[in-house]
């Protein structure tokens, strides 16, 4: 019997038909990757596997069987026994997927006790065990920490630990690595790989990143606009895609080791930097609780130039970006700005006002400038939305009606609306599938050529950074450990940390991925 059997699944949110006639199946122990552009219905399909659309406004039709349970017909109790015990899910957004009020270990223990009749103590012990299994250091102690005391990567691992608690036959992971830097991403993917080998569970990995899929799955399902476009063994599909869309998707994947980016025009003027930071520091909290988020950084960005910033999670990238645009006053040092600045925010959740339509948010800078009349504003917003691959008539829709990637694009449109001289893009394309990503980076490139726009491009995806940047700065623990022209740094990394980062980048070729995995193991054990 198959672990998953989906037939003719369709999901619609009111007038929006997110998934249409999707059918696929998964055998026990196998791994399926669902890839596709942002907004193509990947998350919606994954939710349907556990019946999570129940009670929401979504309408679901077709048949879904998971681990022998007919998800659409099952009653509440039956469904509950499926959820977590036989099939567990790791959500797209690790930052908000844990309850802030309870200790991580207790949350795992709680889930365990829902499915196993064991004592509280036994459940806690089990929580420590699985936390240890996902390599949370000092698991017994950290089980008592609350989520906010965990870094992003640790939280993601805690969620996986929760999924593992009841030893499910199936793990559904929705973009488990999106918000993570490459080193952590690699750790998580390696972990999933290992677990699968050890427990023999099935895996559904939802991702927009073909590279991630290539590293971790047996089969791949390519989705687009709610439909399955192509499916087959991962090696075959990636090596010889049958569909034009899949080909386009693969072609758009930026490569770290491929041909160098097309020759970029040099900075428009070599004069004074547009924005300049001189020995800036940022300290959060006071005395014993103080965190040095940025610790003495000096850098400048010229007109028409792109500065890439990479570095591990928590290294101070966002904080630096906020200081550059003036949202944060440096605790020490100074920032000089000689033009209009904008920012694309890292968290697509909080960067859009949930109570205002996205069109209104994009129109904000236009209205603030006060030069255009109502009609012209609407027209201009429509134009901007189209430029980032959204529809002009989505003006009146609200943020929650968009997928993660779509929201990120709204943020970019808003930054562009202000007609800035410099944009700080904080993980601006991290949740975008490669095609959309390519489209957006191309747009930014064009604006840079035409208007002399300067960019600060913060990302964990080294390949994208390489593609768009002139120079790159590598940050660690609030300091810039290495800075230089992008080819220079990628080709001849000086700092050991930079080397570690480069080794963590996922590869498209499954064979190469395996080689890298062992290489990483060496690097980390050394």
């Amino acid at each position, binding site marked *: 019997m198959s672990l998953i059997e989906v037939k003719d699944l369709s999901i619609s949110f009111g007038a929006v038909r997110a998934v249409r006639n999707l059918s696929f199946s998964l055998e026990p122990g196998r791994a399926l990757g669902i890839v596709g552009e942002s907004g193509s219905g990947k998350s919606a399909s994954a939710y349907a596997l556990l019946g999570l659309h129940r009670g929401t406004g979504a309408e679901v039709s077709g048949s879904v069987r998971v681990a022998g349970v007919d998800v659409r017909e099952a009653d509440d109790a039956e469904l509950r026994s499926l959820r977590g015990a036989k099939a567990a899910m790791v959500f797209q957004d690790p930052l908000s997927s844990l309850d802030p009020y309870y200790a991580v270990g207790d949350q795992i223990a709680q889930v365990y006790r829902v499915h196993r009749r064991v004592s509280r103590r036994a459940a806690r012990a089990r929580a420590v065990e699985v936390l240890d299994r996902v390599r949370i250091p000092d698991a017994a102690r950290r089980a008592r920490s609350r989520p906010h005391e965990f870094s992003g990567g640790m939280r993601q691992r805690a969620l996986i630990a929760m999924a593992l608690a009841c030893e499910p036959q199936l793990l559904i992971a929705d973009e488990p690595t999106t918000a993570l830097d490459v080193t952590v991403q690699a750790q998580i993917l390696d972990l999933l790989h290992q677990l699968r080998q050890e427990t023999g569970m099935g895996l559904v990995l939802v991702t927009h990143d073909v590279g991630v899929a290539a590293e971790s799955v047996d089969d791949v399902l390519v989705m687009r606009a709610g439909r399955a476009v192509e499916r087959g063994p991962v090696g075959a599909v990636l090596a010889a895609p049958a569909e034009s869309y899949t080909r*386009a998707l693969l072609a758009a994947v930026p490569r770290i080791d491929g041909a160098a980016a097309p020759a970029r025009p040099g900075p428009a003027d070599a004069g004074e930097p547009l924005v300049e930071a001189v020995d800036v520091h940022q300290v959060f909290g006071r005395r014993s609780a103080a965190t040095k988020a940025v610790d003495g950084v000096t850098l400048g960005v010229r007109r028409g130039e792109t500065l890439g910033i990479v570095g591990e999670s928590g290294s101070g990238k966002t904080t630096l970006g906020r200081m550059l645009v003036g949202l944060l006053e440096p605790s020490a040092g100074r920032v000089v700005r000689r033009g209009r600045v904008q920012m694309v925010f890292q968290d697509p959740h909080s960067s859009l006002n949930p109570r205002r339509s996205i069109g209104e948010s994009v129109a904000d800078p236009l209205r603030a400038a006060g030069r255009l009349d109502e009609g012209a504003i609407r027209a201009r917003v429509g134009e901007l939305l189209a430029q980032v691959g959204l529809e002009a008539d989505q003006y009146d829709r609200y943020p929650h009606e968009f997928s993660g990637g779509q929201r990120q694009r709204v943020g970019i449109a808003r930054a562009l609306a202000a007609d800035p001289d410099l944009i700080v893009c904080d993980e601006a394309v991290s949740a975008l599938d490669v095609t959309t990503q390519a489209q957006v980076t191309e747009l930014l490139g064009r604006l840079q050529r035409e208007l002399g726009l300067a960019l600060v491009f913060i990302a964990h995806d080294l390949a994208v950074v390489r593609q768009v940047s002139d120079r790159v700065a590598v940050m660690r623990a609030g300091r810039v450990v290495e800075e230089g022209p992008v080819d220079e740094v990628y080709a001849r990394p000086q700092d050991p940390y930079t080397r570690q980062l480069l080794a963590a980048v996922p590869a498209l070729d499954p064979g190469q991925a395996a080689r890298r995995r062992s290489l990483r193991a060496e690097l980390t054990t050394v």
Partner: protein
Amino acid sequence: MAEALFTEVTASGDAAEGAGAVAAAPAPGGRPFWRRLRARRSALVAGGVVAFLVLIALAAPLLTAVEGQDPTTYHPDLVDSATGGVPLGSFGGASADHWLGVEPLTGRDLFARVVYGARVSLGVALAATVLQVLLGVAIGLAAGLGNRFVDQALSRVTDVVVALPVMVVALGALAVVPAGFPRPVLIAVIIGLVGWAGTSKIVRAQTLALKSLDHVAAARLSGWGRWQVARRELLPALAAPVITYAVLLFPGNIVVEAALSFLGVGIKPPTPSWGQMLSDADTWYQAAPTYLLIPALLLFVTVLALTVLGEGVRTALDPRAESRLRVGTGRKQETRHDAEKEAGA
């Protein structure tokens, strides 16, 4: 390359259909808030009730003219003087002349007093609530947005206001303000001045939570001034808790007005108010139940209607509420959901 791909994708027929997946529902008529509010039947009914009460208050002279009574004329002949002034006849002396009967002791027409009382009670409570909300929002916002010193200072001032007995304030105010000053206005101002602390605390807490969100930062980068940012990004989000709380303040204010009457510093007679009626009627529950029940019932209806309306407005203000409400009761089966849809179609 990427650009080519993009054009290809959008040009293909498949993609055009795919666009349907992300296309918005056809542009709705009217502003979304009103559309969402209209969609909630309970809110409409409640709104109707509130409008009706307001109408009664506004049309008080007209209504009493129709009845042929006024709220101040004594009818000593309609009460039984020997047994403490109980209205003669059943149902508190209700008759064709006196639709709701008469007040014990005085024989004044109860209907007239109730409709005129609506003017004062609703008016005072509304004015007081508006004042409380305005002050509370202004001070809460200032505390939430200001620097540490401003925040500390305003928070302590809030504490002082919470701790200040309303009696002391009322007595002081009554002594200072000239006797000719309209009393309902004065009472509304007093209640407003001592009762904004709750709102300001809520607003401050919310502001602190909200101001760290990126969309507020984005609005600042858009070039708005401080006030504009507050108005566009903070106030809409504050509206929900503030409305929830204001709906609670409103009946509270009616009761405070009653308590002030009870303490002798309230609305001046012979002006009727519901609060005053309630505080006069408390001992009459057995001898003349309608005297107590009518204002109590009206007050209850007002509160209920306002609560439901407030809930409706609050939800309608929040574009996510539709899915949010259902989330709470996530027990409905998808299949049943479909079946219902079909049955309804």
